[in-house]
């Protein structure tokens, strides 16, 4: 419509047809539709059908005159604003004029009519009309709702679209205040009864409406757009959420597959699976059934404290799933069940005592079924499809990991078995329940051949296992003999506890070694040495005795030269004899060790005997041999053995000291030990040889000068063994060119030292037999230092440690027994270093803890304690 101009219509009303015609003629040539009416009534009739741009109305008409007609026109809604021009034939008075204006008459035209003026006036109205009608058209036909409100905020115009928007007829709104905010780009929401609310966007323009300032508000319906926007946003949100979920799922799966590659244990694998599932779903229980050729196990992880019947239910589902998926059918007892709890105590009890929701799937690789898996809940929320999908994906991952693990373990087991089977020693693995879970053919043959499984010898296995378990991390040994036909065979069992990855003891590995041949070799060697010694002694006896008898003058008087020759021969025979004796001693030590029969002996007497026997030798070399001994010190030793040690050391010193040198023997008390030293100012021992000097058959390399002095390489070895047998220590300090000092320690005889010696033995015993015992002795008085020491002792006590008191009363001998399973060696050090002079309050030491181990140890010790006590 816009742009095309409708012809405006005008109406001429005059009762005089001639005049009517004349006036009509005035408008010829103008783009107007000219209507005419000869009476007010006819005019009103036309007004019902046509909108006129202007009405030219004759004032004086018969019947209904101009005024009356104008009044009616004004009263009609359609025409209330239609401009009216009065036409009068003559001048009228002022009263009439104002009457006309009050009726809305816009102008007066008097006859004679000036056509130019009339045309100009009408043209203005026509133009105005067409503009208005055009505007109206635009407004009415606009798809946007348009509301025009006047200065006072009342509605003047509502177009069709707006009517529909507000769902109200325009008439009900016209003249009413417009109750919505106006302005630009304001969104207004219109509630429309039952219909959905409408959302419109406003634009407001200031306009001139009917000659008055007004505002035109256009309302653009954006309900659909809004709806779309919301939908779009929702879709977008949903999409994002799903993307996020998917990303999370993917990252969960990624994490799972990444870590699953490293897993080498089923339990870790299952734990990983559970944690992955836990990330994506809320469950009370996850179960795995894992079946291999040899065994089946079910691992149930509870994330809530569900009752046993629920666990059982889950197991049954797993088994059923397994059986229906084509697994080798197995009953409800053919598996090992492990329940792992992974819930915090705070978690409330589950709502139901049976499963409300579960998903189960089978774990397979290719067409091989390796197990089943379940995730279940006792809660109210079912699992979503996405969760189920994810669960199945996780199950897939786990399935292939289990498969990988199966083959890994299988090949590992194969390899281990091959190795174990191929080693010569018997190997047993005994699990925590004492069952043999692995054995190689050698072990089998030993066990079966000698029926170790049932009878006495089986005790050897049990004993070694128990010993090993008593000291986890270390190993224990036992030996046993058993008859094999006529042959007596000796076996050596060594057990080591095997720790699982979590540090728990998973079992004991026992190595069985047939040591019959070794023992036989030892026996042969020992008998060979002894027989050689015997066979050497007999001719030596002849040599010695015939020489002696000659020297005694049996063959008559000897010349100087003859005497010298015979003496040389005799001296060498003596040396040979010493050598043979040493060899024999070593043989004995190596075969059985040796026993010492100790008694209290004044050490000065030992020194005296040794010095006396060696003085001639010293004098011969013009060596100053002297002894500095505190005469009142008694030692608790085997006198013969210690004499042998001291003689050996002095003899060595004499050998390696040049003529005119000096050898000094000293003895002084140091704590509860006697420290004995034999020092010389000889040539010294090279550093690199000092560490080996006590080794068997080790001989210090001799310089030319002392070539003849070289010994058997046995003396120091024997001395060292003997000192050790007394609970002492032997060592050497030497500076090349300046001299050498040998030191050794011996336990001093005293009440205290006697007890100490006993306790030392007890510790030795416990070390040798791997008994969990260590001992610390303290004494005596009731002073402040006592309490301090006691605290020190208490602090050093572990949870398994114990203190007992020996004797009673304030001046008690206090024996602290540390039951330390692992640290017997350290305890021995503590014992050796001792706590002399430290004092303990006996009364405050009265604490101990009940323990089987303690009792066992105490039974043995208390007997010994009482014997020591009596002796002293």
């Amino acid at each position: 419509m816009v742009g095309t101009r409708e012809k405006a219509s005008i109406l001429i009303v005059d009762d005089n047809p001639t005049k009517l015609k004349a006036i009509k003629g005035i408008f010829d040539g103008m783009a107007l539709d000219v209507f005419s009416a000869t009476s007010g009534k006819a005019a009103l009739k036309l007004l019902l059908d046509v909108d006129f741009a202007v009405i030219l109305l004759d004032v004086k008409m018969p019947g209904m005159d101009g005024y009356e007609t104008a009044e009616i026109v004004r009263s009609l809604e359609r025409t209330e604003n239609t401009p009216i021009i009065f036409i009068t034939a003559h001048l009228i008075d002022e009263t009439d004029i104002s009457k006309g204006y009050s009726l809305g008459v816009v102008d007066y035209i008097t006859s004679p009519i000036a056509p130019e003026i009339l045309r100009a006036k009408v043209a203005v109205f026509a133009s105005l009309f067409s503009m208005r009608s055009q505007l109206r058209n635009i407004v009415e036909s606009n798809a946007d709702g348009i509301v025009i409100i006047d200065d006072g905020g009342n509605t003047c115009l509502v177009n069709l679209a707006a009517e529909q928007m507000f769902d109200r007829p325009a008439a009900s709104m016209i003249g009413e205040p417009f109750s919505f905010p106006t302005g630009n780009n304001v969104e207004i929401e219109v509630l429309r009864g039952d219909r959905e609310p409408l959302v419109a966007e406003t634009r407001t323009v200031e306009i001139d409406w009917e000659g008055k300032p007004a505002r035109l508000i256009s309302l653009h319906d954006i309900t659909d757009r809004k709806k779309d926007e919301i939908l779009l946003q929702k879709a977008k949100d949903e999409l994002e959420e799903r993307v996020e979920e998917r990303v999370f799922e993917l990252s969960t799966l990624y994490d799972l597959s990444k870590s699953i590659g490293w897993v080498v244990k089923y339990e870790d694998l299952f734990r990983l699976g559970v944690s992955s599932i836990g990330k994506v779903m809320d469950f009370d229980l996850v179960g795995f059934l894992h079946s291999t050729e040899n065994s089946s196990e079910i691992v149930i992880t509870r994330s809530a404290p569900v009752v046993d019947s629920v666990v059982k239910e889950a197991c049954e589902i797993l088994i059923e799933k397994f059986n229906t998926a084509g697994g080798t059918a197995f009953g409800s007892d053919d598996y090992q069940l492990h329940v792992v709890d992974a819930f915090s105590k705070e978690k409330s009890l589950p709502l139901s005592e049976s499963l409300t929701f579960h998903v189960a799937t089978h774990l397979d690789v290719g067409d091989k079924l390796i197990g089943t898996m379940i995730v279940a809940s006792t809660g109210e929320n079912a699992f979503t499809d996405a969760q189920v999908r994810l669960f199945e994906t996780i199950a897939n991952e786990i399935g292939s990991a289990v498969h990988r693990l199966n083959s890994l373990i299988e090949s590992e087991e194969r390899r281990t078995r091959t190795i174990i089977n191929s080693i010569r020693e018997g190997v047993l693995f005994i699990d925590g329940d004492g069952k043999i879970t692995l054995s190689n053919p050698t072990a089998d043959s030993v066990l079966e051949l000698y029926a170790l499984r049932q009878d006495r010898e089986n005790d050897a296995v049990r004993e070694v296992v128990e010993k090993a378990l008593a000291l986890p991390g270390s190993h224990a040994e036992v030996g046993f003999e058993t008859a094999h036909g006529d042959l007596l065979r000796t076996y050596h069992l060594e057990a080591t506890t095997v720790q699982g990855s979590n540090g728990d003891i998973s079992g004991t590995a026992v190595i069985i070694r047939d040591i019959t041949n070794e023992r036989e070799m030892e026996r042969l060697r020992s008998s060979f040495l002894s027989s050689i010694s015997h066979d050497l002694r007999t001719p030596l006896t002849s040599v010695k005795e015939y020489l002696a008898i000659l020297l005694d003058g049996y063959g008559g008087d000897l010349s100087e030269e003859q005497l010298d020759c015979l003496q040389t021969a005799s001296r060498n025979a003596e040396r040979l004899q010493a050598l043979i004796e040493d060899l024999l001693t070593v043989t004995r030590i190596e075969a059985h060790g040796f026993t010492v029969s100790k008694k209290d002996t004044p050490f000065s007497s030992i020194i005296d005997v040794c010095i006396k026997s060696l003085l001639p030798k010293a004098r011969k070399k013009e060596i100053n041999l002297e002894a500095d001994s505190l005469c009142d010190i008694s030692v608790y030793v085997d006198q013969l053995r210690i004499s042998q040690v001291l003689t050996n050391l002095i003899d060595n010193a004499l050998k390696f000291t040049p003529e005119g040198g000096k050898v000094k023997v000293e003895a002084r008390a140091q704590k509860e030990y006697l420290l004995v030293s034999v020092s010389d100012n000889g040539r010294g021992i090279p550093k690199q040889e000092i560490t080996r000097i006590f080794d068997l058959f080790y001989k210090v390399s001799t310089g030319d000068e002392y070539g003849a002095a070289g010994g058997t390489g046995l003396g120091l070895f024997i001395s060292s063994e003997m000192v050790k047998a007394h609970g002492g220590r032997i060592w050497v300090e030497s500076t090349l060119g300046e001299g050498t000092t040998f030191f050794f320690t011996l336990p001093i005889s005293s009440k205290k030292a006697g007890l100490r010696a006993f306790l030392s033995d007890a510790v030795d015993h416990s070390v040798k037999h791997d008994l969990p015992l260590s001992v610390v002795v303290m004494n005596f008085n009731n002073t402040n230092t006592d309490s301090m020491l006691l605290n020190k002792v208490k602090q050093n006590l572990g949870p398994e440690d114990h203190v007992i008191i020996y004797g009673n009363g304030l001046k008690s001998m206090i024996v602290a027994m540390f039951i330390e399973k692992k640290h017997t060696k350290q305890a021995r050090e503590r014992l050796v270093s001792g706590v002399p002079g430290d004092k303990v309050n006996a009364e405050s030491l009265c604490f101990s803890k009940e323990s089987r181990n303690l009792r066992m140890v105490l039974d043995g010790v208390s007997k010994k304690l009482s014997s020591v006590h009596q002796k002293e």
Partner: protein
Amino acid sequence: MPKTVLVVEDVEDISKILSLRLKMHGYSCVIAPGGREGLARTREEKPDLILLDIRMPDFNGFDFLNAVFADDEICHIPVIVCTASAEADTEARCLEMGAKFYITKPFDHMYLRTCIDSCIGPPEGER
């Protein structure tokens, strides 16, 4: 009449030197080169003391000791074992069987004499 010592010893060099020594000390000496001969001579001569080797072929010192102490006629004769055997249990066994002393070779002839003396007293005189 000096007191008689029977030396039961298979090694001639040893029995000879023992005999020489015993004679030097004033004893009369009879030698048997084996256990069986030693037993026969003991029964024949009823020596005052027997000096016995252990390691002998066929009939060894233990067999000899068994035989002597099983025979009432001769079981009173003191036996001193003189052997090159160094095993501790040999010594214990001999003493247990009834030997008075156990001397290892090479022996100290003064110690040997002391032992003999403590069994039968000096070479001459009352038993």
